[in-house]
Structures are given as C-alpha cells and as structure tokens.
C-alpha cells in the first residue's frame, strides 16, 4: 500500500509542475505589460520601469518562475490588477462559498441518485425502470444553466418561495443560507446525480449477475440482504471514482451556477476576472482550482486503492 501511495504521489508531481508552468505563462502570453496593467493608462514610463524592476519583470523568465513559485508556496499569489487586493485574500473569501455549493450539490446528487438507481434495480425490466433510465438520460443532457433558470422561474417567480439570488454566510443566518443554497445545489447536482444513478444502476446489475450473489441467494439470503449487503457494497467502489472524476464538472458548473445565482464564489471570481482581464486573479484562481482538482483525483485514486485491495499490487 505504501508503495502504491508513493508511486501515485510521485506521478502527481510532474503534473503539478507543468500545471504551474502553464499557469505562470498565462500572464506572460497575454498581450500587454503587467506593470502597465497594474499602474493604469496614465502611468509615466519611469514609473512603469521602476515597477517592472520591482516586480522582477526585467529578469529572465526561468528566474521569474522560481521567484513566483516561491511566493506561491508561501501563499502569496500577487495582487489584483483591478483593486490591488491580494489574490490569496480574494480566494480565501470565495472558497467557502464554492465549497458550500459543491457540498450541497454532492449531497443532493447522492440523495437523488441512490434511491433512483436502487429503485430502478428493484423494478428492473419493468416500465418504472425504463422511465427512470430515460429521465436520467434527459437530465444528463440538460445544461446546468437552463435548469437554474427553470428553477428560478418556478420557485421564485411563480411560487415566490425562495429569493431568486443572493448569498448569506451560514454562520450569520443558517436557515436563510440553506434556503438560498437549495436552487444552486439542485442545478449543479442534477447532472451529476444522473451520471451517478446510471452508473450505480449498471454496476449493481452487473454485481447481481455474479456467482457470489447466486451463492448468497442459494443460502437463502433475502433479496434485500443480497442487494444491500453484497451487490451495493461492491458496486460502491467504482462509484467513488466516478464521484471523484465529477469534481471537474462541479468546478466548471460552479462558474455557471454562481453566475446565475449571484454567489460570490470561486467561479464568479474567475468569471469577473476574465471579463475584466484581471490576469493576476485569473492566474491565482486557475492555479488553486487546478491544484485542488489534481489533489482530489489523487485522493480518489488512493480511496480506490483502499477500497479494493487488489489494486495495490498493480
């Protein structure tokens, strides 16, 4: 197991390095001079030159990379071109919002997927199963942002149950925070629920066709026991991987969801920065999001190794 973890950690290092190089070059590929961007259009050339030296922009690129990486590792991601705010501070403020959104979506996705998949398995080869499967295919094809708009129309405009957008921190007003989180979580979670439910249904059916299930049934184990104690348990292993892989979908979907619901999360931060060409914020946001994505993939693989002992020996 230790060797597997070690090997997998080592694999992540070059990827993280290349990601950081790509993100670093983002600022240098962009048209325009970062120093000029920071100072604004009214800067005199002397000011620009001074800031260039100050920022180290006159040094060779590899040196700049090492210096930048040093700052990054110490938690310094530079300052926004727009309002001079430290990027790290902006990120710290936005992460909790995105985290709440993704957690809400995850809970909803699991909460929807598990009963749907197991219900479909229970009533396999009946019309109920067919309806669930068809519904999941449609749900998977429906874009997050359209689901969001439909939800706002139904729950806010028509029924007036939930305000159409807004955010309050849960430590200030827990009930209101939860209420405001329902629509975004649903919009973001539905697509993932569809992927999960289809996958879970397929793997459970696959497990049910195996020999050990026949043995369990032959022993006289009730169908419920066969399903939950055996088939579902074994089907959960691949589900962990699918869930881990969906994190990328979550991050992308978070941008769209936060845009509609006015949530001040990472996605909205990135969106605003891209529109304002605030490359310092774009760089910091992408670096951190991708870093987290790589780590989640790593954790997924490790979980997979823990759940299925056979994987260690590969």
């Amino acid at each position: 197991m230790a060797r597997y973890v070690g090997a997998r950690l080592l694999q992540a290092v070059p990827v993280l390095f290349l990601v950081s190089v790509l993100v670093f070059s983002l600022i240098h590929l962009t048209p325009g001079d970062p120093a000029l961007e920071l100072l604004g259009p009214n800067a005199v050339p002397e000011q620009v030159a001074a800031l260039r030296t100050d920022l180290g922009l006159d040094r060779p690129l590899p040196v700049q990379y090492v210096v930048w990486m040093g700052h990054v590792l110490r938690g310094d991601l530079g300052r926004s071109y727009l309002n001079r705010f430290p990027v790290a501070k902006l990120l710290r403020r936005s992460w909790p919002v995105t985290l709440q959104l993704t957690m809400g979506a995850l809970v909803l996705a699991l909460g929807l997927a598990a009963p749907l998949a197991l219900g479909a398995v229970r009533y396999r080869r009946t019309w109920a199963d067919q309806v669930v499967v068809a519904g999941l295919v449609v749900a998977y094809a429906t874009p997050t942002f359209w689901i969001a708009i439909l939800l706002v129309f139904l729950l806010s405009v028509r029924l007036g149950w939930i305000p159409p957008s807004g955010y309050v921190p849960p430590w200030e007003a827990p009930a209101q925070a939860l209420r405001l989180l329902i629509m975004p979580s649903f919009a973001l979670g539905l697509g993932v629920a569809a992927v999960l439910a289809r996958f879970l249904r397929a793997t459970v059916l696959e497990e049910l066709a195996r020999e050990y299930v026949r043995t369990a049934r032959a022993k006289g184990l009730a169908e419920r026991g066969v399903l939950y104690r055996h088939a579902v348990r074994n089907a959960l292993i691949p589900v962990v991987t699918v869930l881990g892989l969906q994190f990328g979908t979550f991050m992308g979907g978070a941008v769209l969801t936060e845009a509609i619901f006015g949530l001040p999360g990472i996605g909205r931060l990135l969106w605003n920065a891209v529109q304002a060409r605030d490359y310092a914020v774009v760089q910091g946001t992408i670096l951190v999001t991708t870093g987290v994505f790589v780590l989640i993939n790593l954790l997924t693989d490790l979980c997979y190794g823990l759940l299925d002992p056979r994987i260690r020996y590969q």
Partner: protein
Amino acid sequence: MWSRSGLVARLARRPRGAVGLGLTGVLVAAAVLAPLVSPHDPLALAKGFELARPSTAFPFGTDELGRDLLSRVLYGGRVSLVVASVSVLLASAVGVIVGLAGGYFGGVWDAVIMRLTDTILAFPAVILAMAVVSLLSPSSFNAMLAVAMVGIPTFARLTRGAVLAEREREYVEAARAAGASDLYTIFRTILPNTLTPVLIQVTVSMGFAVLLEAGLSFLGLGTQPPQPSWGAMLFASASFLNQAPWYGFFPGVFLTALVLGLNLIAEALQEALSRQVGEY
C-alpha cells in the same frame, strides 16, 4: 471496416439510435435551412414588439430588442453546430496525429506527449476553456479553439492506446518487413484499425462541445452579440423571467434536444461497435 450506410441503418434499428438520429437530424436540418424557414431576419429589430408573447407573427415571441426568437433560435443552432463540429474535428485531427506519433515512436516523444496531456486533463474543462478565451479575447472562433483544446488530450490518449495494441500485430510487422516507411505504416496500416474508438469518441465529444460552447456563450465568452446563440439567449432571458418567461424556454429546449440527440447517437454507436470490436 464497416460501411457507412450499414452503420446508420444499424443505429436506426436501436431505439436510442433512432431517437438520437431523429432529434439530431431535425435540428441539423432546421439549422441548415434557417435562411429558408426563418420567418424574420434574426438581427432585425421590430420596434414596439419588445418581449412580445408568442403569436402567429412571432411563434416563439421576441427578445428585449424586438428580435424574432424563432429566427434567432434557428440561426443560433447554426453557430452551435458549426462551433461544435469544427472544434471536435480539430481536436480529433490533432489528437489522433499526436497519439499516433506517441504510440508508434514511443520513448521520449511519447513520455512528453503523455505528460502534456496529463497536464491539460488536470484542468477542469470549463476553467481551461475560460483561460484560453481570456487569453485570446471572446469570440465564437476563439470559443471553438478553446473547446478543441479541451478535447485534444482525450483523442491523443485514446489513439495512443489503440496504436500500442496494434503496433505489435503481425500485419504491421509485415508492412515494415515489406519495406514500408514509418509514415506509410502509421497512416495506411495502423490508422484505419484505430478509427473505431476515435469515431465513438467523436460522437461523445459532440454533445460535450455543444454544451461547452453554450456555457461559454452564456458567460459572454463565446459568440458575441448581436449574433444569436443559445447560451447567450438563455443568459439574457434570466433578466426577464417576470415579463417574458417564454424567452429562455425555446433556446433551452433546442439546446437540450441537440445534446440529448448527440448523446443518444453516441451511446447507440458505442453499443453497436463495441459488440463488433470486442476490446473497445
């Protein structure tokens, strides 16, 4: 190799394939024939008819500037389809060439390609596309490049895997023994035998590309106004849910139907071809 007409017929015989082909066919036809079937110019402003309800003159209603939504939805389909198909073609062409080279030559070249694709895959797709667009400035052309960029690694890895399996087969050895050049071996003997998984991936990628383009346009980073696009229409409609709830409905239905149609074709194709090929 399968014959093309035979493949379509086999897809149409599966329920999923039939529905997928039907949906996609209707939407593609509507987009291609948009200039003929649109009742209005998609850019024409009808003064005094802003946010009009659906009526015989404007079957899907009008937007906040008085433009006919049916015409805009039809023309918007052209943008979606063109961006998605060109970006998937681009991604598959680049990805297949890179994957062929990596799988065939191996060694350092292969290692470099694999690390690079790992790196691109490390970025969440929408985030990577946003980064590319932010570098190049928002437009439907740049959205196309961004969507293609996101797709390249998948095609490269898929092709590389298939090449690694084919490279050791006797027929490749035979070609080489007969004195065939590397280029001939790669393109004339190996490539045709790796195309099945690539074709499946092309159909899988199409639905994803349509969604990604719509997402970028929704964020204002894809197709730019006044050109119609489903994503941008949906974004605009969110501000008028009180006055004009129908505004976003039709772009949403068309977008979902196209993605659904493409996904169903992809699934049916996967089923049909995997039974035939076995290992894929």
